[in-house]
């Protein structure tokens, strides 16, 4: 090792140490979610968060997975162990949107999950399934090497009254292309799921889609960071909420450098007594000129008791940027319904068709227009 290399290494180590210390300080100060915390204002923390905390804290380190499966022909995956310091550090450095206290507890006890290092193009979708009947708190790490194309499908399945608290860290190198589809679902009456995702884009292309089905309560915190010019990150979400379910989505698009682009499209169909919350933020750092950043939240309200809270946000500290956000919440178009009904389709079916069409737009964008679902 040359002198310069030794210096560089020492410097990098010092930086990492400082960053970890900072995280530790942040964790020490972190408070449990409550309604006075702006990031939890509409998310009903008084009803849901406490139980989540209790379950994370009370759980011992046994494996509570009903099923943890990975279909990966390329053998890129390794089962996580606690002894891996690198992974622990990566997890410590993760950003949350108001849930540092929960992440801290997760790190104290995390044991299971998968780490995926994708070095070669994959032809088949890598599938990861986490399934629980009680409570599980998995970690997932996905790293994609320069120039590699891959697609990953993560399924979080809460059976019966299962709860999941998941942390997911995605790093994409220059020239790489990654598609991640995250599906959180429940077949029971009280499935709850919370997912914290960090996407670090170093110059590749990332598409990230989340779908929540049948959960009583779900919270998403997605932080997408763009670190080099030419990075492109697209975030999607499409959900249909029924019953008295609550979906609480928080996103942050952080442009550290100029010349990168990010886009977000979150659509929800809200029926019955359900509540959809979207709080997004685009942050363009000082000097990150020539940034393109967009954010769009669309909600279709189907019942009198459905509720939508939408808080899109922009913080622009640079010049020569193209940024916009839009939010619209409206009922279903009567004319579209009338058109379908006049062709003999029942009102209920017509509603489902229009709602499907509304959400299909997002799925098409994720899968590519040609591969219509």
């Amino acid at each position, binding site marked *: 090792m040359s002198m310069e290399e030794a210096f560089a290494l020492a410097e990098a180590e010092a930086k990492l140490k400082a960053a970890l210390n900072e995280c530790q300080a942040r964790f020490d100060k972190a408070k449990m979610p409550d309604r006075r915390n*702006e990031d939890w204002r*509409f998310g009903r923390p008084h009803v849901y968060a406490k139980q989540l905390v209790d379950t994370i804290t009370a759980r011992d380190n046994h494996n509570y997975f009903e099923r943890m499966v990975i279909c990966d022909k390329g053998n890129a995956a390794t089962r996580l162990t606690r002894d891996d310091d690198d992974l622990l550090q990566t997890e410590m450095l993760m950003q949350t949107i108001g849930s540092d206290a929960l992440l801290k507890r997760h790190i104290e006890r995390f044991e299971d999950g998968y780490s995926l290092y994708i070095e070669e193009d994959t032809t088949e979708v890598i599938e990861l399934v986490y399934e629980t009947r009680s409570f599980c708190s998995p970690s997932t790490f996905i790293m994609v090497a320069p120039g590699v194309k891959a697609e990953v499908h993560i399924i979080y399945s809460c059976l019966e009254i299962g709860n999941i608290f998941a942390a997911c860290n995605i790093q994409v190198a220059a020239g790489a292309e990654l598609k991640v589809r995250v599906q959180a679902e429940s077949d029971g009456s009280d499935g709850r799921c919370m997912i914290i995702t960090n996407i670090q884009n170093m110059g590749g292309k990332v598409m990230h889609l989340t779908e929540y089905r049948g959960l009583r309560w779900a919270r998403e915190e997605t932080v997408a960071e763009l670190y080099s010019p030419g990075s492109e990150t697209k975030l999607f979400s499409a959900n249909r909420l029924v019953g008295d379910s609550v979906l609480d989505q928080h996103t942050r698009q952080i442009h550290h450098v100029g010349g990168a682009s990010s886009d977000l499209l979150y659509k929800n169909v809200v029926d019955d007594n359900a509540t959809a919350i979207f709080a997004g933020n685009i942050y363009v750092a*000082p*000097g990150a*000129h020539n940034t393109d950043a967009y954010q769009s939240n669309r*909600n279709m*309200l*189907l*019942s*009198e*008791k*459905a*509720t*939508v*809270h*939408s*808080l*899109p*946000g*922009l*913080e*622009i*500290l*640079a*010049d*020569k*940027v*193209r*940024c*916009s*956000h*839009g*939010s*619209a*919440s*409206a*009922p*279903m178009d009567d004319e579209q319904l009338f058109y379908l009904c006049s062709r003999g389709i029942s009102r209920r079916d017509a509603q489902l068709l229009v709602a499907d069409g509304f959400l299909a737009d997002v799925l098409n964008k994720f899968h590519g227009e040609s591969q219509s679902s």
Partner: protein
Amino acid sequence: MDESPFQIDTRGEFVFPENHRFDAGYGLTEATIDYICDAKGEPDWVRAFRKDALRRFHEMPMPTHWAPEGINDLDFDKIRYYLAHGTAPYKSWEDVPDDVKRTFERLGVPEQERAFLAGVDAQYDSETAYNNMREELSKQGVIFVNSTEGLREYEHIFRPWFGKVIPVNDNKFSALNHAAFSGGSFIYVPKGVKLSQPLQAYFRINSESMGQFERTLIIADEGAELMYMEGCTAPKYDSATLHSGVVELVALKGAKIQYVTVQNWATNVYNLVIQRGLAMEDAEIRWIDCNIGSGLTMKYPAVVLQGRRARGEVISISLAHSGQLQDTGARMIHAAPETTSNIVAKSISIGEGRASYRGEVNVLKGMKGCKNNTECDALLINATSRTDTYPAISVNGNASAVQHEASVSQVDEEMLFYMQQRGLTRAQAMSLAVNGFINDLVKEFPMEYSVELRRLIDLEMEDSIG
């Protein structure tokens, strides 16, 4: 060349020596309140009311997640809460003391009154110095006095609405204003009376470390219409000056109120104003808001749409130079069916200036057929300028439509190049582009103000780049 392509309008930058008969000193205590009440000769219920508000003010925390960081630098003990020449306003221009008269003459108030106003109220530090209204209006039953006189002479109209739109415990600054309020206007327009000319108030802070807590209540009875304009200036001192007004509007059935503000405080002024209107059935309230001055502005005009088919509108322009934070926005509460609202906000950030939009649109449960449209656009002039947008939109039920759009952009180099090619200087081109950006909003201001606004922007551009 100056760092910023703009210069702040400096016409308000002059000061006359202080010459006050009443001075309550620094800090706000029960003794201060007794001093204010004694000076004004207020009834006991007002004294008790103020003291109760003071207690709440001390109990309440500073606003947290909404407030910008700069607000914690504000020291309530270093503010003077009551300074006045006398407590009764002069009705004739000749009687106004010389230094006050010179102040307002310099700001062009008497000419404007002669030219196009129906009435004027000029506040100097804590009290109104001059108040006048055209005679034919008082014959129609229009009341236009300062708040002290309103409470004394028209208690039966004033008191039922006093603190009803903005309650004392709304937030810390509302409590502060309820405790220390002085000056501001009380206006009552009777049923069916439509004012063809606007009423104007002029707010002037002359003294150092002054806190101005004006209180305005405007009641438009059924079918009445009026336009009210306010302008604000202050000289720049080294110590902070606080302007924390409360403005309550009540538009009864079918009434229309337009409230125009052009705020040009000096950059050491904290401008923390609460403005809220209550619109009953078929009524309309429009806030037209222009923020050019002050170091820190927090101002979110609100309309509570309380009656069926009520309409609310906020039109807002803000200009943030280096050292300024314009935290402005709008709130619309749809509390009745078929209510509609519109928000258009445009901001310009220059140098290291920061302009933020904060908004709330809330369609309450069970309200059908409500519509809201929100647009906010930001223009960034320099690489160090900053802009933020933080809207919060809540919709309950499937019978209302709400949409929000925001965009951020900068003056297009190509556009400037095109204009320069045709013989304009860069400053002229820039000024034309900025004027184009806010053109559709400037049209909403009364003629005299819109001409003034355009001239202001032209001037600032030419001063710097040309």
